């Protein structure tokens, strides 16, 4: 099920596209996380991410365009290979079919990854021992920052979740779900604290490569927005235009 080498290279390059934070930071998984035992003491230094963040469209990659670009590159390679049938190095029909299947899988994976990282507004609450990332139109990401304890949790029974700050101060949420579906969200604050990059990587056993989508956020002043929401027992979630009620 391996993708053509050049195709894989393109995929990895695209995963690092935002440029703002560099490839190394976008893809790395905390060193401590590679060893379950060392998790207990690999608590990286927590960086304060709290506040309200809205998407910065200038720096955020367009998921549809990225997928389209990938699709065009890959299908072009397949077409070329089909044309050069007399070339012994060209892909045979079976390989071509596999590449097409992989391409279809990648499109699906990309679409799924995109659906996991579409939030335009993040509200992050952070204390010494927890981080709560509230995402508009999506579920919140929650993390207990417990020292000297494994941060692997089994709250979903057969699914596993892990979260924490790595040595670089990047907040990472990892979920391994049934069907081998792996999801990694990474929150990286720029050096000046003015931008927050969120990368979401999705992987399934059906494809040898993971797919990463990135969004970049900038801070905004909570309460100055014209649009506010509140949850109450009586009315559930209600939103209104105007300043936040005190």
């Amino acid at each position, binding site marked *: 099920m391996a993708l053509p080498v050049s195709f894989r290279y393109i995929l990895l390059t695209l995963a690092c596209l935002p440029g703002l934070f560099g490839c190394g930071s976008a893809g790395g998984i905390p060193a401590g996380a590679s060893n379950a035992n060392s998790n207990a003491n690999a608590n990286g230094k927590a960086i304060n991410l709290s506040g309200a963040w809205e998407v910065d469209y200038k720096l955020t990659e367009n998921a549809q365009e990225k997928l389209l670009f990938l699709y065009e590159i890959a299908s072009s390679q397949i077409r070329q290979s089909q044309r050069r049938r007399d070339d012994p190095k060209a892909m045979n029909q079976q390989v071509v079919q596999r590449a097409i299947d992989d391409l279809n*899988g990648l499109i699906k994976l990309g679409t799924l990854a995109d659906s996991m990282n579409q939030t335009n507004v993040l509200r992050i609450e952070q204390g010494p021992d927890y981080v709560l990332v509230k995402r508009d139109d999506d579920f919140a990401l929650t993390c207990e920052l417990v020292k000297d304890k494994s941060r*692997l949790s089994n709250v979903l029974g057969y699914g596993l979740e892990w979260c924490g700050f790595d040595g670089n101060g990047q907040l990472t949420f990892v979920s391994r779900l049934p069907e081998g579906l792996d999801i990694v969200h990474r929150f990286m604050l720029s050096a000046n604290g003015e931008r927050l990059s969120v990368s979401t990587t999705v992987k399934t*056993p059906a494809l040898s490569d993971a797919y990463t989508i990135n969004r970049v956020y900038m801070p905004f002043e909570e309460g100055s927005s014209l649009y506010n929401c509140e949850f109450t027992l009586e009315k559930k979630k209600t939103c209104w235009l105007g300043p936040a009620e005190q």
Partner: protein
Amino acid sequence: MMLRFLIPFLFVLASCTSAPQVQEPLPAPINVSLNYSTGGQSASVSPLNVSIVLFAAEAPGTGTVSRIYGPIREAESAYLPVQLRNTLDESGYWGAVNVVPSKDVAAELLVTGSIVESDAVSLELAIEVRDSRGRVWLNKVYRDYATDYGYETLENTAKDPFQDLFNQVANDMSEVQLLLQPEDYVRILDTSMLRYAMLLSPEAFARYLVIDDSGEIQVQGLPARNDPLYNRVRRIRDREYSMQDVVDEHFEDFYNNMQKIYPYWRQSSYELLVYNNQLENREYRGSRSGSWAAVESVYRTYKELKLNEDELRELASSFEREISPTVTVLEGRVIELQGTLADQYKTWRKLLRGIYAETTGSIPAT
């Protein structure tokens, strides 16, 4: 470059998941029908009133509930007692059954409990039932398991998948009650009233109660029927009951709100928890395992669970935040009680003691 880091870590995760993947069949759920009162027991005495204290929320193993998931467990600690209250009410064996925010030592029958484990597959509660004499009726851990069937019926009949557990607790309580002799009822009621009186005025009523060698409270005597202090205590207690009804209504409202979310949260949680068992049939919601449709289905369920979890968290934190002040009239005075239910209840009891002290010239007990 990225994958060089990612893949080894995912292997670690994979190895971590391997242990739970060795599946054991889920234990069979208990199947218990609720025993209903036929009205024949102890017709000469009125049924006992039951106070159920909010359950203690305990995280399994750690003894503490995480800050993130705390609100959900807190919500359960108010939700599950109401479910028990409804079951006891339905059985017809009891007088007034109320959920109270804090321990009421003068309760005729006091139910305390803690949540040992609560997820969509199993519910484990440690329950203690004690009467006003201090006699322990039950001290037992109850456990039940849900099944597919339990969640199927949830949609159709609104029956809780763990209802059998509550039926079992109610049945055990009624079994003990059926063994009581009429004089036991009288002692329980007398002790309850005297313990309440002691809270108001220990110096006047302490002499009527002693603790025996077994730790039970024995009534040594009773105040005269026309004792003005004792009659005053009765009236004060009636006011306390009215406050208990107000508090209980708040819990009932909360329960009804929870009903709109909690069962669905448990249902989606259940689907994930039993996922591997379902894989034995190689089917998952009509999707073949290993197919893309199965992957999408897993994520949809996961997202549903997480969104429900968020809503539960909001609900639980809104509950305390939105408790409105209770305005009531006490002895001709308009009283406004503010704060959490526990605070309001505490303030109310303090006021009652103050009123008792004013009218009797005694010093209110703290």
